[in-house]
């Protein structure tokens, strides 16, 4: 079976530190495809092109609340709706590894692909006027000059909590496939039929049941601080009945 590279992102582990966001921007803005531009970087309402963003939101009402940090990037769909709508053939899905890429030389910035993407993963670079998105660091992961352990997307390398796993989800023995299989990995909005390659691992509760008797000190049945009363010296002891 063909290869499908993907990210598996553990929402139970992500703390929302944005290290993946900035390391992605750093690697890709210095990449061979040119900078990810920033608009008004030191003025009012700064904005810019990012391949990866973290959206933080709250779920539930206090005190039954969770704060979810949700990293979002191109999901490298197995059936990507952004590809067939492209009038110039700039948007492609690679046969060899399943990465969805944009050829900036062919892109005319018509936005069709970003309208077709149900996940909002594509951004039109306001300076270069071409569509940009996550490449899974395609210029890193095959770079034979890097040590093998570093041939991973920049976001995976940067994540301090190891919330991001990179691998081939068509290989059932890959770390990514195992994580999806063993930890309830799911795809976003499967009803669109896009079959996203990236998966998310759900928030999980780690329960440690504590029974009431575990809270009681067995060596302190009187529940007082101090020494237990001593038996009277006249009470029988083993010494009285044995002669070792």
């Amino acid at each position, binding site marked *: 079976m063909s290869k499908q590279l993907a990210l598996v992102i553990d929402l139970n582990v992500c*703390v*929302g*530190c*944005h*290290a993946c*966001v*900035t390391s992605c*921007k750093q690697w890709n803005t210095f990449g061979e495809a040119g900078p990810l531009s*920033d608009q008004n*970087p*030191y*003025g*009012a*309402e*700064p*904005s*810019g092109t*990012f391949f990866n963003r973290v959206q933080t939101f*709250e779920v*539930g*009402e*206090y*005190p039954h*609340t*969770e*704060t979810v940090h949700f990293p979002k990037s191109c999901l490298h769909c197995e059936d990507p709706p952004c590809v067939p709508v492209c009038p110039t053939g700039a948007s492609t899905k690679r046969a060899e590894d399943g990465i969805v890429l944009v050829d900036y030389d062919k892109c005319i910035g018509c936005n069709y692909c970003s309208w077709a993407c149900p996940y909002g993963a594509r951004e039109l670079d306001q300076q270069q006027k071409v569509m940009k998105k996550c490449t899974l660091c395609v210029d890193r992961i095959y770079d034979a000059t890097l040590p093998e352990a570093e041939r991973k997307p920049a976001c995976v390398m940067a994540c301090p909590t190891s919330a991001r796993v990179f691998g081939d989800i068509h290989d059932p023995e890959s770390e990514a496939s195992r994580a999806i299989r063993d930890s309830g990995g799911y795809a976003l909005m499967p009803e669109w039929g896009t079959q996203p390659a990236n998966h998310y691992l759900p928030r999980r509760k780690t329960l440690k049941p504590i029974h009431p008797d575990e809270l009681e000190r067995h060596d302190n049945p009187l529940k007082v601080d101090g020494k237990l009363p001593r038996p009277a010296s006249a009470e029988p002891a083993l010494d009285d009945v044995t002669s070792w």
Partner: protein
Amino acid sequence: MHNVITNAVRGDPYQIDTLLIFMANMAWNSTMNTMQVREKLNAKGEDGNYRIPFLVVCDAFQSEMVAFADLVLPDTTYLERHDAMSMLDRPISEYDGPADSVRVPVVEPTGNCKPFQEVLIELASRLKFPAFTAEDGSRKFKDYPDFVVNYQAQPGIGFLMGWRGKDGSQHLRGEPNPNQWEMYAKNNCVFQHHLPPALQYMRNWNQGYMDWAQQVGLRRDRDPIVIHLYSEFLQRFRLAAQGRHKGKQPPQRLRERVATYFDPLPFFYAPLEQQATDTQKYPLNAVTQRPMAMYHSWDSQNAWLRQIHTHNFLFVNSRTALAAGIADGAWMWVESPWGKVRCLCRHSEAVEPGTVWTWNAIGKQPGAWGLAPAANEARKGFLLNHLISDSPAHSDPITGQAGWYDVRVRIYAAAEQGVSPEFPALQKVPA
């Protein structure tokens, strides 16, 4: 340290002629009671002279503090200098053994920028501080890299524990190695000593660990480390305050405070600031936190980070906010006994109803940090520092630690819009 400006202006413990500030934005987010501290920076005595006659600021950016400087020493960024994350001060150690690390410059400093460490070494050498002066009176260290390599806190123990000894063959303890920086650079700027598994656990009374730690100078003694539920150490202070201990005595004005809080057994008391506050009038706790994305960028500015957090809100539990008639996203007042701030409200279900909080050091003075005066940081960002008292009376009674999180506040809707207090825009200095 958080009282340095106040003390300097008060002449406590003595009048100073020069104040040198580095790595601290004392006219803004590094100080409590920001408004009054800014006034104090410009305060004059009865003789018409400034209470802080000469103020020197080292900074890589045109921060709010720089605006008060008589002399600005342009600092470098971390990319242009040597730095040591040393065993002598908050090292980066891991569970399986001690570790330290360095930075080496990757680009040349721009213009006349100089790392603030070089300024300190230069000053200490010219002032002939004992640790920086050889026996014949000559200068001991050429510059900061030389100081890091050759300074020894104890014989054989210096800032960095990797590649010690003349040829770099020793670790943890050994003579200074003239090529130590190069050896760190060759090893990804990190040294780690891996402890054998038998030494990694229960270190507080692991005999093997104790022996090793003493040998390499990590510990003076090799006695087990036991948590003292009854602290003889604190009791000694209390006895002194009670006049029952000969030797050093606390100052008379602090005698009662020491006698009360240096209790050898733990006991609960509300923070001193809260004891002195009408908590009916100011029912809420107010705390701050540095955003994770910016945790290590207190003293820098980054075009990407400011797209992540370009201004801050006051996070208020939805029910608490609605009870005060404050809508999500609306301007609101937050007030303590020491001051009040108008800021934007964000309803949250993830904050306890009796507490409000915000990101700190996001708000900036208009024109500071090389930002346009209309930058979001200045128009919508705010500091909570205005609400926090810097009185030592409210510091932690045992450690003297500043009570940043002890302030009590109340909140109410704001009729007007915009951040208050307002500040004039700083004029851009020539680069």
